[in-house]
């Protein structure tokens, strides 16, 4: 037990959490934008996966930032495709989402095989690049807390810092700019913005494009930092967990951050636990994030009910 506590409160564990959280957080923000615009984006998983592959392939030929942008662009393009089918061709958006996931699972392997000349499993024959870590070693020069600061803050991915900034940016966009107002209006009651002359379908389309872009960015982080390279199905359900995180985070950017951190922490914990407790079955450890989501969901709901009950409504 002591060992676990020491691990959990160590700087390396913190750094691990940030690393596991970042792709999730980016996808969660993407899910949030789509959700507030009134579309449940079940395609986050596929968008992330295609983001991963695009970033990896492009990084072979271009600097890392171009590759990251390409991952982002691939996600955005998928968002556009999704919007086209859902809004223009009036297809069911959940079905479109599932279709994109299927497309991504098969398409990435197919494209990988073309890019590597036949490899269907991993991209290890491609010399892909990594997103650089931000080195804040100079912090250790600060007397006293310097070394601690350094060990906690240094070494995170550029995209981790970007993700943290994006939480703020998304919040500012949603609650301080006119376009955020439009987006929330479109999601909550489309008839109102429609009557106000706001192009509702354009807003919805853009929200899916941005949603896809953020998921693609999450994919870039996953395939250019968490692990450098691509393997089939490497997102391993993170897109669906992000979907849960959106709802768990009460559809608010700060909530999204907390929910993503929660899942990130459990992913990190699941990684360190078998090293510490060899006898806990791996299946049970892997179950933790899902059990926690349900527990949190139920607790949230109980709290909401109790708040109503306190006021004598129920």
């Amino acid at each position: 037990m002591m060992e676990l506590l020491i691990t959990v409160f160590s700087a390396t564990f913190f750094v691990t959490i940030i690393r596991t959280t970042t792709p999730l957080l980016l996808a969660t923000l993407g899910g949030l934008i789509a959700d507030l615009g009134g579309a449940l984006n079940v395609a986050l998983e596929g968008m992330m996966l295609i983001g991963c592959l695009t970033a990896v392939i492009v990084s072979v030929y271009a600097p890392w930032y171009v590759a990251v942008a390409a991952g982002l662009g691939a996600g955005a393009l998928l968002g556009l495709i999704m919007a086209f089918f859902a809004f223009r061709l009036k297809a069911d958006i959940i079905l479109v989402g599932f279709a994109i996931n299927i497309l991504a699972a098969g398409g990435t392997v197919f494209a990988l095989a073309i890019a590597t000349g036949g490899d269907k499993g991993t991209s290890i024959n491609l010399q892909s690049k990594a997103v650089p870590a931000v080195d804040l070693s100079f912090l250790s020069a600060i007397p006293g807390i310097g070394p601690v600061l350094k060990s906690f803050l240094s070494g995170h991915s550029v995209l981790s810092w970007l993700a943290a900034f994006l939480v703020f940016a998304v919040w500012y966009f949603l609650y301080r700019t006119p376009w955020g107002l439009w987006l929330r209006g479109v999601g909550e009651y489309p008839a109102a913005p429609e009557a106000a002359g706001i192009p509702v379908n354009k807003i919805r389309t853009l929200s899916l494009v941005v949603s896809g872009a953020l998921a693609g960015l999450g994919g870039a982080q996953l395939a250019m930092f968490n692990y450098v390279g691509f393997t089939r199905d490497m997102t391993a359900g993170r897109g669906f967990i992000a979907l849960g995180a959106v709802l768990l985070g009460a559809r608010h950017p700060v909530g999204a951050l907390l929910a993503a951190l929660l899942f990130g922490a459990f992913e990190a914990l699941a990684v360190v636990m078998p090293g510490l407790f060899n006898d806990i079955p791996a299946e049970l450890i892997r179950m933790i994030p899902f059990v926690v989501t349900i527990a949190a969901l139920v607790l949230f709901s109980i709290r909401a009910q109790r708040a109503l009950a306190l006021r004598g409504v129920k």
Partner: protein
Amino acid sequence: MALLEAIGIGKTYPGGVVANDGVNLVIEPGEVHAVVGENGAGKSTLMKILFGIEQPNAGTLLLDNRQVHFSKPREAIDAGIGMVFQHFSLVPSFSVYENVVLGSEPRAGIRLDRQKAIAEVQALSDKFRLKVDPLPPVGSLPVGQQQRVEILKALYRNARILILDEPTAVLAPQEVQELFVAIRSLVAQGKTVIFIAHKLPEVLEISNSITVMRQGKTVGQVKTKEVTEKSLAAMMVGREVSLRVERKPTEQTERVASVSGLRIVNARGTEVVAGLDLNVYAGEIVGLVGVEGNGQAETLEAIAGLRQVAAGDIVVANQNANPLSVLQRRGLGLASIPEDRIAEGLSTGSTVAENLVATRLNDSRYVRGGLLDLKAIKANAQKLIERFSIRVGGPGSAVGTLSGGNMQKVVVARELSEQPKLLLVNQPTRGVDLGATQFIWRTITDARDKGAAVLLSSADLSELLALSDRLLVLYRGKIVAAFLNTPDLTPETLGTYMLGLSTQTADEMQAALK
């Protein structure tokens, strides 16, 4: 010279419904122009065409004598036309000012300039005498205020011509008066108003000229000064109508329902009913008078079992109803006509027949051993369709394909197909045309005459005065006045109590409280 002119407008909906068929409309600048007609006459369709939501199949629009064509609302807005829909287009969780500026926000850099938006909304609201607080979320406001927000929205976009589609249907009399004050102030400041309503006295009061529509065609345009309520009604319907109900004197005997010490708290935590006591006897109609949001709707819902009560006792047919479910209360002979037929009175995706038995799924005539008796259900529907003259293809048609008036008839038919002991009625004729109104009124009084105890709530004072035997005025969840309905009781008298300007003493109320 006409400001806005529609010539020979034709509109056929994709399903083949001819909603407009050579409609003409001439609007002079600075007037209040009313458009009247029965349900489905094509009024809303015409307005949607003027506002660019629907595209006409035929005809032309002239604005300032120049031909115009609006392919979307934005173009109409830019041309100076504003429209307030029958169903509001407001985002409930947004504040008033956010709703008003939505789509044309004042900006500071990329930020929405909150202060400026609030100031502008405040200024507009002062200028046109449309009092509303810019800050609270719109969802928390009463309908009357929501409507002002809608009007402010149009004015904020510099509308010269303001279309109001059935604005008074949801308003209390005082609110109607406030709306009229605002309309007059709009006109005084150079705006033009197109006004749609089913209540002819209102039309006669506010408008300068009137266009009458019937079955997708314009029957004619008249100066308001030159018509009476009666002649107008005849123009609309094509025959004489009278809106009077003959009420037999009641002989009240048995107490059917009583409520004591009722307290209700809403989801936002505010107390909406604050210690209410009332009794209803067999064979009488008790009217609940009040500006919307003073606890009438909640009281009716609580009696029906649809709403949790914080305190108090409800007795129906000598039984403590508090622990009883909706169905058990219905079993005691309770029937209820809800306020919003689409939201809670009907399942629009289900068939007419299914809607007509929805409240009787424990009845062995239609359900035996958990199995549906489809024959009986269909026969029941056919019988009721005939008895209540519902215009519908057949028992198997989806309710969603019916007009508003016919939908309301389905609700009434279901609730009154069997003689109820206690009938709860909320806004029975909202948005319903003259013919249907007359029919529904007669049905309700028939039920009373056969011994039902009726609790009636309505935003329409003339409806309350026409139907009720006793009237209870609610203000902030309490009864502040009670009257026996006598010919000398006027809307004005009720109005002072409705607005909380005065309160009767317990002695004064005594006679009408029983």
